[in-house]
């Protein structure tokens, strides 16, 4: 949400529809994972793989470890582009990125429950900041800034929608977190995606109505929007939103590092040591710093088909493949079938 999809090629009217396409796309992509959760409500994605093809479980674990390291790398690189473009233009971003990943590794070592509680705080803070920003911006809206939806055809919107959906590594994360969460997992996933889309819809609508095509075409449209928001009591809401972004990148990286380390631990059948998270964060930092020294390199990579292919493989194709194979029946202790 913080960075513009496809370099901001959308018109304001299409940008408002983007969260709707995002919601439909993510819900469709969630179907295989949700069916696997239904099949294996206690074990989730990994349990289903174990049940279906025990021999392939190690490879699946290694794949998902790389999958989440890749997700963390894209998240970190995107943030690195932001701090290198907006916050500290004349400074190298690698030291700050390293600090962020170091903190994320520490948070990851605290466990998923600590991360979940942090997300709860983040959710509340995000909600309040979105509401405050919306309130301060409503007086600056001009509906003439909007353009007719799908005026240039459906192609740009679908491309941008696919780009947005392919950033949602959280769907696969939900499938892997089943064994450490309580409650109705499928409902939580649906509500999380819907709430995110609703917030994104509100923010994109405001971006289009306040800043028109200028804001939508920016690399960081949300930052541009919030920089336009200001009240008598606070003129620099963008500072608060930047802090929020740092916080959310930190939590997202920590979660992905945790999941990646968990998968590796599962593959080698050994309990996790704290240094595993630091090794994982180094595995994220090195390619981020080496592959994307400039924002152009990052956007060229992010705009390629590789991230979409990786996302679809881990979120849709692999779970779908497992779904198509009937689970092998385990033999219980008493020789009965379970």
């Amino acid at each position, binding site marked *: 949400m913080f960075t513009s999809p496809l370099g901001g090629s959308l018109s304001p*009217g299409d940008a408002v529809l983007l969260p709707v396409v995002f919601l439909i796309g993510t819900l469709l992509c969630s179907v295989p994972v949700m069916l696997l959760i239904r099949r294996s409500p206690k074990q989730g994605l990994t349990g289903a793989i174990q049940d279906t093809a025990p021999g392939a479980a190690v490879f699946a674990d290694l794949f998902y470890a790389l999958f989440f390291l890749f997700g963390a790398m894209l998240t970190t690189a995107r943030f690195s582009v932001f701090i290198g*473009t*907006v916050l*500290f*233009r*004349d*400074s*190298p971003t690698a*030291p*700050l990125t*390293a*600090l962020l990943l*170091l*903190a994320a*590794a*520490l948070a990851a*070592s605290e466990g998923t429950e600590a991360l979940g509680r942090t997300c709860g705080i983040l959710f509340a803070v995000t909600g309040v900041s979105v509401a405050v920003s919306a309130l301060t911006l409503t007086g600056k809206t001009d*509906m*003439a*800034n*909007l*353009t*007719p939806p799908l*005026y240039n055809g459906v192609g740009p919107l679908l491309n941008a929608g696919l780009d947005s959906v392919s950033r949602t590594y959280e769907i696969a994360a939900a499938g892997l977190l089943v064994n450490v969460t309580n409650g109705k997992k499928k409902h939580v996933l649906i509500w999380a995606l819907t709430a995110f889309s609703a917030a994104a819809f509100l923010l994109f609508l405001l971006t289009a109505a*306040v*800043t*028109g*095509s*200028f*804001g939508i075409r920016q690399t*960081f449209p949300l930052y*541009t929007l919030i*920089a*336009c928001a*200001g009240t008598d009591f606070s003129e620099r809401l963008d500072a608060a939103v930047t802090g929020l972004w740092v916080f959310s990148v930190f939590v997202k990286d920590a979660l992905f590092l945790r999941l990646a380390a968990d998968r590796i631990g599962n593959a080698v059948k050994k309990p996790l*040591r*704290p*240094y595993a998270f*630091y090794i994982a964060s180094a595995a994220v930092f090195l390619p981020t710093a080496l592959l994307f020294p400039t924002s152009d390199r990052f956007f060229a990579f992010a705009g390629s088909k590789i991230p979409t292919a990786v996302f679809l493989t881990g979120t849709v194709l692999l779970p779908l493949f497992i779904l198509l194979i009937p689970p092998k029946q385990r033999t219980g202790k008493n020789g009965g079938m379970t």
Partner: protein
Amino acid sequence: MKIISVLFTVFILLFAGGCALPQTAELNDRLIIEAVGIDRTPDGGALVTVQALDSISPGSGENAYNSEKLTQTFSLTGRTAAEAMEKLPSVTGLLPLYSQARLLIFGRSAAEDPSDGLLDFFLREYTVRPDVCVAAAENTAEELLRADLGQNIIGAAEMEKILVSGENTGLTAAVPLYEFAAQTENENGCAYCQLLKLGNTSFPGEKQTVAPAGLLVFSGKEARSVISPEDTPVFLMLRGKAGKISLSFRGDGYSMTVRAIKNRTRIKTGTDNKGAPLYSTDCSLVCDITEYVPDDGRRLTEGTVRNAAQTLAEELTARAAKLLGDCYFGEGCDLCRYADRFRLSRPAYYKSLFDSGIKKTPPASAALTFSVSIRRTGREIPGE
């Protein structure tokens, strides 16, 4: 192991944060820019004038209030504005900091030049805030930014105050960069910005002043016409942006000044029987009476108030119609953004025009009505 890793990370985060940015300039190594002015040179290049807080001269910094001026002004030339801006560090020895900039001023020569690129540098430079005010100089931006407005006065801050405070009374327009840029990049766009001029000085050595000189209206990237200071409130009313605007007028046997407390403008688009666009603009004002001066000592009555409301509505309609006629039908400046609204309401029809090679909406007719409601707070108006 866990305690060691926690301590290590906390230590790094707390104490090594500064080391993470080895090339970040300290504040006293930065040139804190307050305003940037852009003029065209006779050979088609750019003359950029930068007003910045004075951190160079002796007496600046802690003793700033003892110094003659708070700001320093630099002028640089280049083939483009960006090339001129790039020379700033080598001229000043300081790294420019754009995030505090308040004002971006175009000289008339730059504003009237339809060539691209004048805004590019500021749109691509992410540290320039998108809500920085845009204005134009009646003559040159350099003249405005170099004006001696008095001791301990930051010229850019003074001009920003004129724009923002004047907007509340309908005298000036404070146009942010994001709005200006969106309109200049829009195929139907009609950007506008406040025109500023240097005020006349009565005595030699007297400090100069800056005064509003109307609005400069653009069609696309090109400045097309000037709206006079007298018509600025009417224009702002048409855009629904008039704040607590004061209006004085003469009625039948009295003079009256009213203050608008509510301004609402509704614009509708449609087509007539022949398929040509039809625009209607309804502008409503709710006003309080500030002053009532009868010619013959008559008291203010409900009938006088009704008459005043009608007189004011007719006067405003006539002025707005002339303004719209001159700008929209004469200069092609779409003041009320009719084309954008028409495209929004009838996208298929609009697109068919463009697909058939017509780059503007066909001749349209526009209806314009002002409705004024006048009241007097705190005092009952007697009947007839």
